[in-house]
């Protein structure tokens, strides 16, 4: 009962966030700019006066702002994100074409950084003060300090350029769909995954190490040990599980914000995903495409947070009791 009510409340809260983002975007693009600039922003920098006039007609820009807002929300609710004025394609079609590359980067990157981050964190916490712990601490600081694009650029110079100079062509930049060739897809994905993982795993190492050290000092861990349970079982069944709560909550924030980080990775490796399309759209001034992307990013955040809330219920018995 409690669970269903909780879920409904979370979904309503998510819808509220989506509405707020959509409204903010409307204000940014339709209200905050001077008269007459709206159509030009949406139609792109190279638009002819005829195109601008057409945009004005389509969007009813001569009508009161309240009416315009109503049309805007109405279009969104019908899944209509408008048309790119460069390619004349619907924005939803462009996003659909670009999404597989983005999803590939996100899923592989998240898996790699979780494995690396949690693995190092748990090893560091159980071997606090050891040489491994110290090396990991320094590595973490370097990882936290490095902006994503620097890691990507350096990987390209150090790995891709070196390998291709020696005739090894497995690792490529650009994007090959998995349906076309699995090894080609893997070759284009490895460096982007490592890039995301290097930066993010550092944060997770630090977080899981701190949280696990804290948990291992709890009374119930001593109780478990004194009952004669093996150290392995104490660690993995009792400690790690409850130490993961802050990690999961951080993961929700990060995966939601990841669409932002992916822009950088796509730009560095030329993956032609949603993020890179957006950067291109901005340089061309194609406003409709940018709006579509902002809404998609918000949807990403909301869905990620919903999944995190659900996993709390699995990790933390206190949520289930109520």
């Amino acid at each position: 009962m409690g669970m269903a009510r909780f879920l409904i409340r979370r979904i309503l809260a998510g819808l509220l966030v989506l509405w707020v983002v959509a409204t903010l975007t409307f204000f940014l693009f339709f209200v905050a700019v001077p008269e007459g600039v709206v159509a030009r922003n949406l139609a792109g920098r190279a638009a002819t006066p005829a195109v601008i006039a057409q945009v004005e007609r389509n969007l009813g820009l001569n009508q009161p702002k309240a009416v315009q807002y109503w049309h805007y929300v109405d279009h969104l609710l019908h899944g209509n994100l408008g048309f790119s004025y460069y390619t004349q394609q619907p924005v939803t079609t462009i996003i659909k074409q670009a999404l597989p590359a983005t999803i590939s980067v996100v899923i592989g990157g998240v898996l790699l950084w979780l494995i690396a981050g949690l693995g190092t964190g748990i090893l560091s916490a159980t071997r606090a003060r050891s040489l491994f712990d110290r090396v990991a601490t320094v590595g973490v600081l370097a990882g936290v300090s490095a902006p994503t694009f620097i890691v990507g650029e350096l990987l390209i110079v150090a790995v891709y350029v070196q390998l291709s100079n020696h005739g090894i062509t497995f690792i490529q930049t650009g994007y090959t769909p998995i349906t076309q060739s699995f090894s080609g897809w893997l070759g284009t994905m490895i460096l982007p995954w490592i890039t995301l993982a290097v930066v993010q795993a550092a944060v997770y190492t630090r977080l899981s190490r701190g949280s696990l050290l804290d948990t291992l000092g709890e009374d119930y861990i001593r109780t478990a040990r004194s009952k004669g349970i093996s150290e392995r079982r104490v660690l993995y069944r009792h400690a790690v599980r409850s130490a993961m709560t802050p990690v999961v909550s951080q993961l929700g924030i990060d995966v939601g914000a990841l669409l932002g980080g992916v822009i950088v990775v796509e730009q560095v490796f030329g993956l032609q995903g949603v993020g890179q399309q957006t950067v291109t759209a901005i340089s061309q001034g194609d406003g409709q495409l940018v709006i579509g992307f902002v809404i998609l990013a918000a949807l990403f955040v909301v869905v990620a947070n919903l999944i995190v809330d659900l996993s709390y219920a699995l990790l933390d018995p206190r949520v289930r009791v109520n």
Partner: protein
Amino acid sequence: MSITEVQFQATAVEDAPAKAIEGRSQWQLTWRRLTGDWVAVMSMVVVVLICAFALCAPLIAAATGHPVYHAFPNKGTNAFGQPVGPGVNGFPLGTDAIGRDLLVRIAYGARISLFVGLFTTAVAAVFGVSVGLIAGYFGGWVDTVLARIIDAVLAFPFIVLALALAAVLNPSLGIVIGVITFFSWAGISRIVRGQTLSLKEKEYIEAARSLGAGPWRIMFIDIMPNLLGPVLVLATLYIPTAVSFEATLSFLGIGIPPPAPSWGNILAEAQDHYQTAWWYVVFPAAVLLITTLAFNLLGDGVRDAMDPRTERILAGGKTATRRRGKHRGLSLDEAILVGEQADLSVDHPISRTEEG
């Protein structure tokens, strides 16, 4: 026991406490601990060197004879129109795509990066502390509203807003500063709010109130000095984050517009040349990495120096090696991290189910 011995002992007893209670303020103690930590001292030296590098940018340009915006198509590029490498034709770090001196460009880029890093952090700290104090001290609906806003800002993906802004307005230094500040104050507010919540229950605050002090006096005169430590640590750690933000925005073409040099836009231009000109990528990237790493290490050092537990470890006869992991409790570092997480529980299902 002879008289002289007694006298000697007496003077010794009189002298000893006089030495032991030589007054040292909290800040003096912190400074002593900080200078006793060689990693912190090294990172301070690096930070000072980078600031000097930025300040001396015009001198470097004058010394090399290569003004920052001046391209040298003849000696700055090779026969194929490609950048020349380090040391060639009097360019210490080589040239960029159109034959400008890379060293001079990086030095001028340092000015923008450091200015953005320090300025946004200062503004974010002032704003963040004020909001955090008000939310924590007044509580009630003020706190509810402000805490919600803080959560909302922290949950918003910053690049998305920057993208939307860049699409509507033209990229500029002002927008970069605005976007970075907007996303930095909330983290500081959250920590300050949490500290204020516990500090306002202390006896000395009650004493101040019973003496007739008003809320603003209590907040800014009585509570704020106790927050300076954590805020200083956070601010030191926000500077490298801001430097990275600026570089990332400029790299994406929504930050500092060229031809003004910034580490981010130099690296963006370098993207088309990584096959032929490694120096074009490696030098700006290395300077950026060294800067952010130095600030992060310094922040860690300040945090350790502020933590009274460090003193006990030093008193225990151990040298000033890095303290992390010496005790099994939470360090301030981890406390801030976990505290941030715990504070998330404002929006955490557990707290809500317990309420209702």
